[in-house]
């Protein structure tokens, strides 16, 4: 499981991309790009950590983009209309998001319905609620929230540093704790876990609630960066998050995944996006290249994995 060599393939791909872009755009390899990226990625990172857990237990959560928008909307309402302080408003937003995750979890676990379809329903509902709460208007908050995403250390913001901490904690939880083992077990063979005398349901619901919570945290980072809450935000974000996680090598079939690799997956997606924008590639080409990179990254990972153990 551990050991740097697991990440070599992905890191190689990342470096190759950086080299390519620095050739194509003179300003690519600068502190500016780094700062921008570090400012950009926290939302995607924390949500991808949550999604890693969700995929590991063999679930999926399509609602994360909408839930993020809902949390952001609630947060902004609390601050702007009711005059709450940031801390309280942030807490409320995170709470609402966790609740959404919990609902997905409870319904899909309780009735044994695939989380794919439940979270699709929650996607619609959370989006509707976000519109309802904000009255379909972007809510501007202003500099009261910008501290979280302002650089404090070598161009890194509290949001970025928190995201890194969440990655590390997530990695440790997955690899070193009882909970992590249960998740992997559930994702591989849920029935066997149940027969081992463990009730898999609470662990599963927890994962979805955690996903919601992290979507809420992502919303906080997002709001702080935009200084506004956009009820339209995060449309289609779920697929981006899942793409990052899968590029990082986590299996959609459950039972296998790594938070560190997910982080690298997010970097690949984000560097690609940043690089393509700096080079100024046309929109059609951007889409085509993005698609190619997604497929290529996963194909390469397959080869690495095969080479590793040629037992099959």
């Amino acid at each position, binding site marked *: 499981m551990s050991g740097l060599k697991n990440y070599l393939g992905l890191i190689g791909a990342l470096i190759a991309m950086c080299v390519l872009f620095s050739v194509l755009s003179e300003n690519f390899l600068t502190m500016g790009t780094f700062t921008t990226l570090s400012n950009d990625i926290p939302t995607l990172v924390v949500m991808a950590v949550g999604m890693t857990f969700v995929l590991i237990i063999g679930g999926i959560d399509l609602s994360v983009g909408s839930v993020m928008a809902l949390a952001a909307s609630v947060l902004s309402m609390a601050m702007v209309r009711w005059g709450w302080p940031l801390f309280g408003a942030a807490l409320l937003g995170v709470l609402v998001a966790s609740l959404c995750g919990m609902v997905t979890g409870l319904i899909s676990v309780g009735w044994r319905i695939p989380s794919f379809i439940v979270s699709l329903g929650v996607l619609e509902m959370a989006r509707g609620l976000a519109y309802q709460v904000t009255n379909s208007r972007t809510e501007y908050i202003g500099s009261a929230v910008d501290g979280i995403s302002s650089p404090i250390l070598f161009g890194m913001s509290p949001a970025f540093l928190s995201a890194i901490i969440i990655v590390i904690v997530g990695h440790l939880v997955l690899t070193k704790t009882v909970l992590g083992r249960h998740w992997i077990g559930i994702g591989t063979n849920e029935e066997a876990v149940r027969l081992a005398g463990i009730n898999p349901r609470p662990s599963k619901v927890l994962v979805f609630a955690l996903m919601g919570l992290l979507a809420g945290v992502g919303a906080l980072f997002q709001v702080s960066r935009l*200084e506004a809450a956009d009820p339209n935000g995060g*449309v*289609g974000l779920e697929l981006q998050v899942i793409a990052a996680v899968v590029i990082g090598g986590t299996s959609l079939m459950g039972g296998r995944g790594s938070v560190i690799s997910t982080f690298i997956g997010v970097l690949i997606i984000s560097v690609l996006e940043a690089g393509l924008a700096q080079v100024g590639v046309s929109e059609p080409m951007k889409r085509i290249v993005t698609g190619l990179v997604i497929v290529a990254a996963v194909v390469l990972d397959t080869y690495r994995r095969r080479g590793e153990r040629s037992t099959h």
Partner: protein
Amino acid sequence: QTAAKPKVALVMKSLANEFFLTMENGAKEHQKAHAAQYDLIANGIKDETDTSNQIKIVEQMIVSKVNGLVIAPADSKALVPVIKKAIDAGIIVVNIDNKLDDAALKEKGITVPFVGPDNRLGAKLVGDYLAKQIKSGDKVAIIEGVSTTFNAQQRTLGFQDAMKTAGANVVAVQSGQWEMDPGNKVAAAILNAHPDVKALLAGNDNMALGAVAAVKAAGKTGKVLVVGYDNINAIKPMLKDGRVLATADQYASQQAVFGIETVLKAITDKKAQSSLGGTVETKVALVTKDSK
């Protein structure tokens, strides 16, 4: 850096919308004609509402050390903080198409000139033209763009202004998401729910195209009037045969060019952002069968 040849970034919304494509082409032609004066980097986003991605692009432009930024914001408020960053980095910023929110600009203590049309006025022009073909008391319905965007809201208001004056009865306002197929679906539903509806006012031409198809499917061609907004290519044959009564042209290609020229002027005149300001209203014109 060669101060002689500034770099200007044009950041738009969905480049998959013909409107912005026209805008981009106008800008590119202008750059070709003035190649000695500046370089252009044009960027767009996935769809009309991909706000956070647009912010990322602005950030990339700051990193790329552009000298000027011309932006059609996907969101009037959420783009303000990053625009302040750009201004702080010494970039001259001009706002086009969709106006930034005044309160937000004020909170950030910045001014950004707006070069663009008055959407409410444009919609009213179209609505007024339609009003001539209907009677007071007639039922009409509005197909709105993405409800969260400022210009969608403005256009709905403009349509409503015109209908009020005409004494028409607006029986429904529903969103067609700026797109043809969703526009078609809500139009079809409205036609079923209100069989006596006399006109459909669409917030842009894509949705108007969808509405035309719905009218046809309901077997009401000629009985229900349709208007749009944007004057895209695909709408032209419909104007000709009357399936679409009118649309508005907001001269997309010129909006960008005006924006770029404003930026370039400020750079050559060495003006500070704070000394720029105000609104340069661009043309918006009614287009009908008879317009050329």
